[in-house]
């Protein structure tokens, strides 16, 4: 809210501090305030009134009251009802009658009538103050209405009495819901379609004003206007909020009403506007105030526990200081032992419980005076979060393997099961169901600058829940992508990525890993953008852990269920000492069909060789010259070792021979030694 420094000064006899100092004071105790500019001899402050204080502080009076408390300056509201001189001959209620059809939506409607007004430009001092606050001067009556709104926070409206349609001499103002199909043209010539969600002020025939939002063209004040009706009303905040949204019309009035203001404000505002119009236009204020206010608002009472103030703020403030602060803010105090019975001014709609009062005491006392104190509560060690520990461990492992961590948007452009109702862009219409789609985009972008790209991401993906329609399954995944130099053998990328997965699982002490390429045609565990010939499910025993595959962009990727990974991972290890006895290495070359799987051969070697085989190591795969087209040659080192004796030649020869025989007989392969 823009506020003029000079206008603020006019509320006080004492000089205000320099503008920067004042801004700082307000920032520390009330609202964040910035000095945003200079206008001739005035400074403009931008005060960010907090939402809970919009009830009483979207006004000069509100801000001045804050300042008076902070500086200890005298501040008293002018009582305009005493300054006003009513015309004793004519009664306002002989000319105007107000009928409220929706009492819940319009808790109060106050009106006054002024005759013999002369419409012209408003005085310069009013015009200047309006301009500083961003309002455009129009004519004296409208400008004064705006001026009084800025000063009091009460939106006001003026009608040309003679333009209100009526069947009798007394003009009727009706507060009612609009009928569907009714229309109104606003003061700035915009046409609005109304319906029963919109409250209007109407004469006997037509809506003349969208209540609390915008005046209508009908009874507009113009140069010929002689008699005016002034309105200071109070409207339900939700009604105004919805109406303003529906009509897409936000005004200074709607902004204040939808934040809820005190109905008691209407009376002081109507007297102020009547006084100013009388003073400036020399109009005659008719006797009496028309006031429809069926349910009076009384001051709330709250019990405040002194002990609670100190315990919540962590300070030692005396009862006397507390009383002093609350009184300055306008609260009424009755002492009752250790408690205070506090009565709340009706403008302070925000204060309804003890803690609200403690906030008031705290901010006026000064948050800066509260001394930081590390709690002395008994030390409870934090609960161990396995997720967190393994998440960080997995990150370290992958980073050490050359992968960088990515954070992608949770949104994707292509259709997925979970859809966003109100996306901000076409690219972000769906919730991701895997991490890979976005990672592949990252690869593509990075390939402009880097030959090799290795990325991983840990994040949530989303599915519709199977059993419950109104639920979404949110699961954590670990995804990785690898893209190397394009000239190289693409197959190598697969084995490199597989090596990364193996290494990760090994370091997490997960064994029994195998890669299953027997996948049903309609299997949904691997995304459809993967190559059906180059894909495998990663399995641990019988459990599905994730997948690894070539994607349709030729980049290799893997995705693993993060929760499953953590469930299987363990930090436990048992040390086994290396054998004291030497090992013996024998090499073996096997000629097989191209489609024979390495894992089959290794399994056979291991089962034939038994416990003395320490390791089987594939060191060469050869296809080409000297080998038939349909065949390949695989060469293995077989390492034999015992934990309790030195192996003798004969022993090794016997086992190795058994391995060879088994490979020939059970495998049906040719052995080349």
């Amino acid at each position, binding site marked *: 809210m823009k506020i003029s420094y000079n206008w603020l000064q006019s509320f006080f006899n004492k000089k205000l501090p320099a503008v920067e100092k004042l801004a700082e004071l307000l920032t*520390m105790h009330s609202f*964040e305030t910035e000095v945003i500019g200079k206008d001739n001899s005035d400074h403009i402050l931008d005060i960010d009134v*907090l*939402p809970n*204080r919009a009830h009483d502080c979207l006004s000069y009076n509100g801000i001045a009251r804050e300042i008076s408390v902070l500086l200890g300056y005298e501040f008293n509201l002018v009582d305009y009802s005493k300054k006003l001189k009513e015309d004793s001959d004519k009664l306002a209620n002989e000319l105007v009658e107000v009928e409220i059809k929706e009492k819940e939506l319009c808790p109060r409607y106050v009106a006054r009538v002024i005759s013999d007004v002369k419409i012209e430009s408003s005085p310069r001092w009013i015009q200047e103050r309006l301009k500083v606050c961003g309002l455009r001067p129009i004519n004296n009556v409208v400008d004064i209405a705006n001026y009084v709104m800025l000063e009091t926070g009460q939106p006001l409206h003026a009608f040309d009495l003679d333009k209100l349609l009526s069947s009798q001499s007394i003009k009727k103002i009706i507060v009612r819901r609009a009928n569907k199909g009714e229309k109104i043209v606003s003061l700035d010539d915009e046409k609005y379609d109304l319906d029963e969600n919109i409250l209007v002020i109407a004469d006997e025939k037509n809506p003349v004003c969208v209540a609390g939002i915008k005046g209508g063209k009908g009874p507009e004040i113009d140069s010929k206007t002689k008699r005016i009706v002034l309105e200071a009303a109070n409207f339900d*905040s*939700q009604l105004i909020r919805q109406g303003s949204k529906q009509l897409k019309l936000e005004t200074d009035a709607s902004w204040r009403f*939808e934040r809820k203001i005190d109905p008691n404000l209407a009376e002081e505002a109507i007297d102020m506007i009547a006084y100013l119009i009388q003073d400036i236009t020399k109009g005659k204020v008719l006797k009496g105030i028309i006031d429809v206010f069926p349910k009076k608002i009384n001051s709330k009472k709250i019990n405040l526990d002194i002990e609670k103030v100190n*315990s*919540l*703020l*962590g300070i030692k403030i005396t009862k006397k200081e507390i009383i002093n602060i609350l009184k300055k803010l306008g609260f009424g105090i009755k002492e009752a032992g250790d408690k205070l019975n506090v009565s709340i001014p009706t403008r302070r709609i925000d204060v309804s*419980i003890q*803690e609200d009062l*403690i*906030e008031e005491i*705290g*901010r006026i006392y000064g*948050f*800066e005076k*509260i001394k*930081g*104190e*590390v*709690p002395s*509560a008994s030390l*409870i*060690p*934090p609960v161990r*979060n396995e*997720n967190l520990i393994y998440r*960080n461990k997995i*990150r370290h492992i992958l*980073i*050490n393997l*050359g*992968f*960088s*961590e*990515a*954070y*992608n*948007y*949770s*949104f994707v452009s292509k259709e997925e099961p979970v*859809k*966003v*109702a*109100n996306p*901000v862009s076409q690219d972000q219409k769906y919730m991701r169901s895997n991490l890979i789609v976005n*990672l592949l985009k*990252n690869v593509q972008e*990075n390939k402009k*600058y*880097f030959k090799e*790209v*290795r990325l991983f991401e840990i994040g949530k993906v989303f599915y519709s829940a199977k059993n419950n329609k*109104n*639920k979404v399954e*949110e699961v954590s995944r670990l995804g990785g992508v690898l893209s190397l130099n394009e000239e190289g053998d693409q197959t190598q990328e697969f084995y490199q990525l597989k090596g990364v997965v193996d290494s990760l699982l090994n370091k997490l002490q997960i064994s029994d890993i195998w890669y299953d390429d027997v996948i049903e045609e309609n299997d949904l565990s691997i995304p459809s953008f993967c190559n059906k010939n180059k894909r495998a499910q990663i399995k641990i025993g019988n459990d599905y852990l994730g997948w690894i595959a070539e994607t349709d962009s030729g980049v290799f990727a893997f995705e693993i269920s993060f929760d499953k990974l953590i469930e299987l991972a363990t930090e436990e290890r048992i040390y086994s000492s290396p054998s004291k006895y030497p090992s013996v290495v024998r090499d073996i070359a096997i000629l097989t069909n191209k489609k024979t799987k390495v894992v089959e051969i290794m399994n056979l070697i291991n089962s034939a060789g038994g416990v003395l085989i320490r390791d089987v190591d594939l060191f060469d795969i050869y296809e080409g010259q000297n080998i038939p087209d349909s065949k390949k040659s695989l060469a293995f080192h077989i390492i034999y070792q015992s934990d309790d004796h030195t192996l003798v030649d004969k022993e090794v020869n016997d086992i190795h021979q058994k391995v060879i025989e088994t490979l020939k007989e059970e495998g049906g392969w040719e052995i080349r030694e």
Partner: protein
Amino acid sequence: MLNEIKQKAIEEINQVKNLKELDNLYREYLGKKGEVTSILRSLKDLSEKERKEKGGLANKIKQELENLFKENKLKFTSNSSQEKDWIDVTAPGILPVQGYSHPITLVQNQIEESFQSMGFSVIDGSEIETEHYNFDALNIPKNHPARDLWDTFWLKNLDLLLRTHTSPMQARYMENNNPPLRIIVPGRCFRHEATDASHDVQFYQTEGLMVGKDVSMANFKGIMETFLKDFFGSELKMRLRPGYFPFTEPSFEVDIKGKNGDWLEVMGAGMVHPNVLKLAGYLPNKWQGFAFGVGIDRLAMLKYKIDDIRLFYSNDLRFLKQF
């Protein structure tokens, strides 16, 4: 004449460029047919007196030249061994394949470590939430204008939303755990708004909650000072000023002082609103505490001087390789 030969030899030795030239020169002077050798050999033809005179000088010169050759030879041979062994230590090292952490991970880890050392447990929460936990349980009723403070993504055909803050975990945690408690909840949140250098549709936040019999605003200040000094260094200055959140009362904003003297807002905080305690099943007259929400992206931007929040989700390796 002998002295002339010596002078000539010294001059020539000094001009020699390699071992081979030096060997040739040696042969010229001190070889079997070398100049000095011939003179020495010719001594036998002289008288005893002359032999003594000339011989002493010749032998002295021979010794000098021998030494000189030795010295120079050493120079070349030691040089040649350097040539073989020498490496250019300024040539670039061969880098192992490098991976890098994401800056948000780095900052989140630091936050977690700092708060864990103060007895806070780290709790996870879900990114999809119900209206109840995201708003109602936090004292933000339907149609309250305060809801406008949180622009929300809703899911199509579902009564669900993407959490706009990590605060729903306050209610969820309190419903399932008894006080006293200290937790932080880091995680991804979403906001339905136009993006620019300081706003994005998603961001990371850490919720903090401490509830006990007498947990006070002074305690919040103590904890937060410890954390911020941990994070930004012991020189850090912070201040609290009034704020507004429906789920805390009193509410305050936390600012830190930047290098240029300006105050920068880093988080919102407050004392847990009695309605939030009540809705979670706690007795508000028995328990009290503080809560805060700090933007992890924001802290990372301040710490690493990153000027655009969208860089965090670009996954540009030119960016990532700096962390």
